[in-house]
């Protein structure tokens, strides 16, 4: 006898774990399948920065809501999730960037996100390791930091406690029309299939408008008190959001252990996990240009991970017009940790047919489809979205 699930979540990263927990919470018979267990992939590779971003109104709405959900959940998180309300300092190098600081402060205020403008002197007092002569910064106090693999493990434990089943690790070979085929030859039967495979989502659905965007991170030994906030250059917006070019940006995060995570890089077309030493060097030199003494610290590891990037920098959440049994939860690029909880709420609302708490349409995958070309064959919309 084949068991029929209401929802089969494919992928047990932080997004899949959050989706499983939310589906179980609303009473859906939920199963989760992943080839490698909970919290691998980008969940284990990323920084764990819970951050409000405002590239578009839809991005601001999703990150702000999800950040609130994290803050509500924080008291329940186990200590190994290392949740800390560190705050982000968006560092402005010059007057042009200070104008951007003021613009953002007003925008954030209108969205109900409190922030504070620091002038040059206040910034030097807050972070004495920063180079002299910076123009100032925007402090977003409600931004936070956590350790994503531990947070994902917690979300999955909660999902299981609420009745979800974590199936034994098994690679998914195909999914379509309510059937999930596994490497061992068996099949799962599902009312809805949630594709939460991050940058791997295209392995099963090649027509998705997702490209792997490789990133590098470095972690240092423990140097408590070296910096106090997550420090990000305001120029990050320019570099992170230019879709075309490989880029680096200054982005340093103090961990609860006293270690520092040093990022960040963005690279298209690199599909293997090896280190690009030229880009790694550029990334560290960028960090040194803001924190002149960071080169005196000892790094203990460097690694890469893959963001699931979409053309408009918004995730793909919701129904997929090519298959009524699909619900996507991927394409989060660098914001999957932040937006995992809100994504899960949207997914659960979609599956149960309930109204979502924020408008869900901006994240619908259908926005990339040319409806006139959808009709006859699945291969057509592959062309339509690849551009």
């Amino acid at each position, binding site marked *: 006898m084949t068991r029929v699930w209401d929802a089969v979540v494919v992928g047990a990263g932080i997004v899949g774990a959050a989706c499983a927990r939310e589906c179980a919470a609303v009473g859906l018979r939920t199963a989760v399948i992943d080839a490698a267990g909970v919290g691998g992939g980008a969940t284990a590779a990323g920084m764990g920065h819970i951050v409000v971003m405002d590239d578009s109104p839809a991005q601001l709405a999703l990150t702000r809501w999800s950040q609130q959900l994290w803050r509500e959940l924080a008291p329940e998180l186990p200590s190994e999730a290392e949740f800390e309300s560190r705050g982000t300092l968006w560092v402005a190098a010059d007057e042009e960037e200070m104008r951007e600081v003021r613009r953002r402060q007003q925008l954030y205020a209108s969205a109900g996100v409190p922030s504070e403008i620091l002038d040059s002197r206040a910034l030097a007092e807050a972070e004495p390791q920063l180079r002299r002569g910076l123009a100032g910064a925007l402090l977003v106090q409600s931004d936070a930091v956590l350790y994503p693999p531990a947070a994902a493990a917690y979300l999955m434990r909660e999902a299981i406690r609420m009745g979800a089943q974590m199936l034994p690790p098994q690679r998914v070979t195909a999914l379509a029309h309510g059937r999930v085929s596994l490497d061992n030859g068996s099949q799962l039967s599902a009312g809805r299939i949630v594709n939460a495979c991050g940058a791997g989502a295209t392995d099963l659905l090649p027509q998705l408008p997702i490209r792997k965007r490789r990133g590098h991170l470095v972690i240092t*030994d*423990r*140097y*408590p*008190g*070296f910096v106090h906030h997550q420090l990000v250059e305001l120029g990050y917006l320019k570099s992170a959001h230019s879709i075309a070019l490989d880029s680096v940006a200054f982005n340093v995060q103090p961990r609860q*252990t*006293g270690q520092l995570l040093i990022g960040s890089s963005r690279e298209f077309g690199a599909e293997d996990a090896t280190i690009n030493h030229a880009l790694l060097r550029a990334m560290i030199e960028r960090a040194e240009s803001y924190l002149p*003494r960071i080169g*005196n*610290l*000892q790094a203990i590891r460097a690694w890469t991970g893959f963001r699931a990037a979409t053309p408009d920098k918004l995730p793909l959440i919701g129904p997929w017009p090519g298959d009524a049994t699909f619900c996507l939860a991927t394409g989060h690029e660098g914001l999957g940790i932040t937006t995992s909880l809100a994504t899960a709420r949207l997914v659960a609302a979609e599956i149960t047919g309930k109204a979502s708490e924020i408008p869900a349409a901006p994240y619908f995958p259908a926005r990339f489809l040319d409806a006139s070309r959808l009709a006859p064959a699945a291969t057509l919309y592959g062309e339509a979205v690849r551009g």
Partner: protein
Amino acid sequence: MAEPESIALTVDEIVVRVSPGTTVAAAALIAGSHTRLSIAGEPRAPLCGMGICFECRVAINGVPHQRSCQILCAPGMRVTTGRELAIR
């Protein structure tokens, strides 16, 4: 009485005299001290003695995370064990 060629250094403010060629790890042992503290606060001591395990880290003259088994004692050295130090 110490040998004329002995080297004096401090380990956590304890004065230690050693022969030339003595590693800082040995000086820490002579002082009766552990080396680093683990993330959970457990005291650690040299394990491999050849610079691989990183258990022997101490701060030397204010520079944290030095592998004491790979560094020889020098006159007036200040060795600090047990905690990670911020670079100032």
